[in-house]
């Protein structure tokens, strides 16, 4: 297995792709890692990523960008780019990634592999270096749904060290792969097929939905009106939580420490100035501002209230349908360097994945075709704790299609 470098591995460097932790070696295993080890998984290496999970292309790694195996001039997606690329290139049979705003699903779709973000709390976050505590989740990236089911089985379940982990029993995911989705009510949210989407993406996702209909699913048009607010909501909540989560990196206890002249405060400032990359600094500043006196109500508090509306939106829709089908991203893998000058343009690639994290729901990315030779991912979204249902939909689709078996030419 490959493990994204945001998860602690005992005795093995865990850098979070940051200069701040370039030489940091944890003294314990993350729970998800420990559980996989207990099941006999062998660690092949740690996966490159966007620094501290912040990014959508793995270009924010402090060390080097990872290249998409389908076109090495393009990004693999992010932030779990290294993990998706490794599985895509056959360097590892599966990987553990993390998803805060789409960081498993989006790189999985860009690299043509299968990824799953579980329900928030389904998998323990103990040992996952925190970015946005109320959004982060650990999940599998593998070649197909059946593999994802096996991995999820090993890592899911309550952990007494994570107060946000769910006590609910873990079902037998592999047994849920019946290959039968007849009668499944599949919603297609109109807001996820807006203008500006890549035509090839639209075509591939639409074809996939048709395929699911042919397999017995009943397709219904639905609406999620709060979709347009998810991006703004995310970019207040996540930076706010991250500004606190990254406050511990001050060069005093561990990690990068920039000494030199001046007093302790000056050393701390320099440590953070040089230890963090620009996107991380950007988000810390955004978050500190959003939480600051006089602004808390207008930004953070308001964003949390909007979040409740987003969650209610999904809950309402899931009274009508059993799952949703949509694109993962409006685009396919873009060239390295294309969006690095414009943060907001970079943020926009995640518009369809962010709402899912806001609502804490499970979702998958399933390879469903190509656009100009680059992989396209179909997103499946389910209600709370419906991983078994999503895996079965994906598995059924993968029994009838070959997209997930395609391999890059490298």
């Amino acid at each position, binding site marked *: 297995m490959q493990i994204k470098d945001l998860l602690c591995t005992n005795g093995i460097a*865990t850098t979070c792709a940051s200069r701040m932790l370039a030489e940091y070696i944890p003294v314990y295993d993350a729970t998800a890692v420990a559980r996989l080890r207990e099941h006999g998984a062998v660690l092949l290496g740690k996966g490159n990523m966007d620094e501290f999970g912040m990014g959508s292309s793995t270009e924010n790694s402090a060390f080097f960008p990872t290249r998409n195996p389908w076109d090495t001039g393009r990004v693999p997606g992010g932030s779990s780019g290294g993990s998706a690329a490794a599985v895509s290139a056959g360097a590892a049979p599966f990987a553990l990634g993390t998803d805060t705003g789409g960081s498993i699903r989006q790189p999985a779709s860009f690299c043509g592999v299968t990824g799953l973000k579980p329900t928030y709390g389904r998998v323990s976050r103990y040992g996952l270096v925190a970015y946005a505590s109320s959004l982060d989740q650990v999940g599998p990236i593998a070649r197909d749904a059946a593999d994802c089911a096996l991995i999820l089985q090993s890592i899911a379940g309550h952990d007494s060290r994570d*107060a946000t982990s769910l006590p609910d029993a873990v079902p037998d995911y592999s047994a849920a792969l019946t290959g039968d989705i007849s009668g499944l009510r599949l919603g297609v949210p109109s807001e996820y097929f807006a203008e500006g989407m890549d035509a090839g993406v639209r075509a591939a996702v639409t074809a996939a939905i048709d395929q699911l209909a042919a397999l017995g699913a009943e397709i219904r048009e639905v609406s999620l009106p709060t979709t347009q607010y998810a991006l703004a909501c995310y970019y207040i909540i996540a930076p706010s939580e991250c500004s*606190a989560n990254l*406050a511990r990196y001050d060069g005093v206890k561990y990690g990068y420490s920039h000494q030199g002249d001046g007093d302790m405060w000056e050393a701390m400032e320099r440590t953070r100035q040089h230890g963090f990359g620009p996107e991380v600094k950007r988000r810390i500043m955004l978050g500190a501002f959003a939480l600051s006196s006089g602004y808390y109500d207008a930004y953070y508090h308001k964003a949390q209230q909007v979040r409740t509306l987003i969650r209610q939106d999904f809950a309402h829709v899931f009274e009508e349908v059993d799952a949703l089908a949509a694109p993962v991203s409006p685009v396919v893998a873009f060239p390295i360097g294309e969006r690095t000058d414009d943060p907001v343009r970079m943020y926009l690639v995640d518009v369809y994945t962010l709402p899912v994290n806001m609502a804490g729901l499970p979702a998958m990315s399933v390879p469903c075709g190509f656009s100009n030779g680059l992989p396209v991912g179909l997103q499946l979204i389910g209600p709370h704790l419906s991983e078994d249902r999503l895996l079965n939909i994906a598995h059924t689709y993968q029994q009838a299609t070959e997209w997930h078996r395609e391999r890059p030419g490298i």
Partner: protein
Amino acid sequence: MFCGCPADYQAAEPNTRTCPVCLGLPGALPVINRRAVEYTVLTGLALNCRIPEFTKFDRKNYPYPDLMKGYQISQYDLPLALDGFLEIDGDTQLGLGRRRIGVERVHLEEDVAKSYDDRGEGYSLVDVNRSGVPLMEVVSKPDMRSAEEARQYLTLLHSIVQYLGVSTGNMQDGNFRCDANVSIRPVGSQILGTRTEVKNMNSFRAVYQALEYEVVRQREVIEDGGAVVQETRGWIEEREVTVSQRSKEYAHDYRYFPEPDLPPLRIGPERVAELAAELPEFAPQRSARFQADLALSGYDADLLAGSRSMANYFETTLTLRDADAAEVANWMLGDLARLLNQDHREIDASPVTPQRLADLLALVADGTLSTSLAKTVLEEMYATGGEPADIVREQGLGQISDTGAIEAAVAEAIAANPKAVADYISGKDTAARFLMGQVMRLTKGQAQPELALRLVQEGLELQKTRGSLEP
């Protein structure tokens, strides 16, 4: 508070009570300590607070090397307990009587690591043992009107948390800390003056002195035409002054937000009722009961009820022996207290158990021991942890009540002290007491005192009649 590390930071070697959670290592997560929450609710109930159904933790963000995560997990707007009070006697010197001092809130948070600064070598050291230890904060309303009232409030609060077993209440160890806010205003004004916060007081006496000092200092500032600056001041014990700490800190925007790693807690009325049933009878009520039912003096009752362990020891001894309450009180507050104080021991650690004390008092009651001998036996019991009956037997300390044995000593005392005999015959009755003392000495203190005195008096009377019979 949020991990499993032991909280014995005072005794432990530095940085030996740590784990990824209280070190704030990347990836570590907090988990709420249930008993700490229960202790806080119990304290809130003891302080007559309202326990809201929903409570949560919040992150208080500020950078400092002793704050491992760069934020402290505390409680901001939904604390565990709200709107309570304590009743104090009031500062009678100011004409203030018994009344309520409001308690604003009781909340729970984690302690920070301990810094060792200004060692003169150009660096500071951090001991992380204390990081993450639970801290319960009781915030009073500004209802106290003098240092004396502050002292009363603190003493009562101290007694309550000790009684609950929530804290040892030891200020020197840092288990009971006090920060005080104080302001002054012209007599009759309804508006509170600008307050200063005073820290670094390590005893109740220091709190009292610091507040008295600060009141005088503020008064001088105002009378000199100035204005009191709102600031934090540290109490300097050696110089008995407060000193401004303004330069050490700048105003922090703590950017509070709800702790996303910890779900909010619901403490329902059923649970609150269960906890309320755990509340013991506190010191003031227990003392009142001792006075009413056992006819103890207010002074003695307050002392005995002062700590839960003292009061329990007292009541246990009474039941074991159906004894006279005043007698038990005398022994506990006299000789036993003296022995414990010499060793700085709490009564829980007394080698003299309630059973043994009861047995000792039984030996006095049945005449086996005189009171003064019993004191000796008590000392031996304390030193060795032995049973009183065994000690009496081993040392042959049983009171001599055999008349014949004492008569021999009486005869010896009379023969050896002719002057005393002469004094008695010429009318000095006190000489009898002197001779009785001699008899006690001769019998190694074991003669029954009343019997010894009677036999001495008889012997002296005999001398008198003999003398008058001499030609």
